[in-house]
């Protein structure tokens, strides 16, 4: 996680677009080594390729500091500074997206939670963080089940706009009521297992914090500071 944050900061400090392009390639290489290149590449491509096209077009045509025209097609001129700025923005976003996806695919959420608690984060915050990550898929499953149940009771999803608005309400009310009830049940269950007790806890899953991890974290911090200094000095 420290690597992700560090990379984000670096990428926004680097002025030219070649830097982030290199970092993106390195990240994809790491993904290949760890064995999930196809998932990372597919998701990154789906998210960023439309963005690439849009950014390059918008910035290429309308960037404020445009001076040297690159291509001129009839009345439309495509400028060079805009293109390089668009590519810079795209590669920054690509690096951040790849780093986040790598982190998500390589870390089991429970291990991340245990690591946070070990480092001193309050267990309640760690639980909220984990619960919110699991929240979205669970809500999607429930919403799907509710839509099917309502359709079995005669809900029409293809009628006019007002009916669709009512259909949306009919789906959200059971969903939210169910979510409120399950949140209450969950908090009762956590209380019954002594969640808000203060003191040392032992975990089922041990997350070892080896020397290599510490080296990577500290070197990441050092690299960020170095890049910042380089950017200020030059």
């Amino acid at each position, binding site marked *: 996680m420290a690597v992700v944050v560090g990379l984000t900061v670096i990428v926004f400090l680097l002025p030219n677009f070649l830097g982030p392009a290199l970092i993106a390639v390195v990240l994809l290489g790491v993904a290949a080594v760890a064995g999930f290149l196809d998932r990372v590449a597919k998701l990154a491509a789906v998210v960023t390729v439309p963005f690439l096209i849009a*950014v390059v077009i*918008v910035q290429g*045509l*309308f960037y404020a500091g445009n001076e040297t025209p690159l291509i001129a097609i009839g009345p439309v001129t495509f400028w060079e500074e805009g293109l390089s700025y668009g590519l810079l923005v795209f590669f920054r976003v690509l690096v951040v997206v790849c780093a986040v996806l790598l982190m998500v695919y390589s870390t089991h959420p429970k291990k991340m939670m245990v690591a946070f608690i070990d480092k001193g984060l309050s267990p309640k915050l760690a639980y909220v963080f984990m619960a919110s990550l699991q929240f979205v898929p669970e809500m999607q499953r429930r919403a799907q089940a509710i839509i099917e149940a309502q359709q079995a009771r005669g809900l029409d999803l293809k009628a006019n706009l007002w009916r669709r608005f009512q259909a949306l309400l009919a789906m959200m009310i059971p969903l939210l009521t169910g979510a409120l*009830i399950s949140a209450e049940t969950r908090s009762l269950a956590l209380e019954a297992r002594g969640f808000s007790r203060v003191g040392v806890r032992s975990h089922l899953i041990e997350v070892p914090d080896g020397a290599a991890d510490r080296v990577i974290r500290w070197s990441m911090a050092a690299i960020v500071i170095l890049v910042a200094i380089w950017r200020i000095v030059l």
Partner: protein
Amino acid sequence: MANPTLIAFAPVNVAIGLIAGFLALRGWFRTYPKIVASGLIIMLTGVIMSSPILILAFGGVSSSPGRSALTAFFLATGGNIWQSVFTTGVIVEIIDKLISVFVAVFVARAIPERYRPRTARQTL
């Protein structure tokens, strides 16, 4: 993790949540004119907070092609990037937030009394 670029907009959602709670506890969601007013306030908050993030991190281009096209239109007709992104944001989000606020109020009113949280008497 469907779209990691949305993580950059986390502060926007935090601000909207805070302002919505603030307005709700003061009874701004009870009568229909007040609901429209709070919808507009929430929309302004959303646009003010998301425009800098869009410009600085994403170059003014958002993930939806329609919105980017509208931004490009305003840029082409002579605005600078801050004006274009802000105007696009207002136009897109006014409809979005008004609908969301109304759906939220109707849903909250329809939850049975037993499952409402304690502050429901002040807000609804």
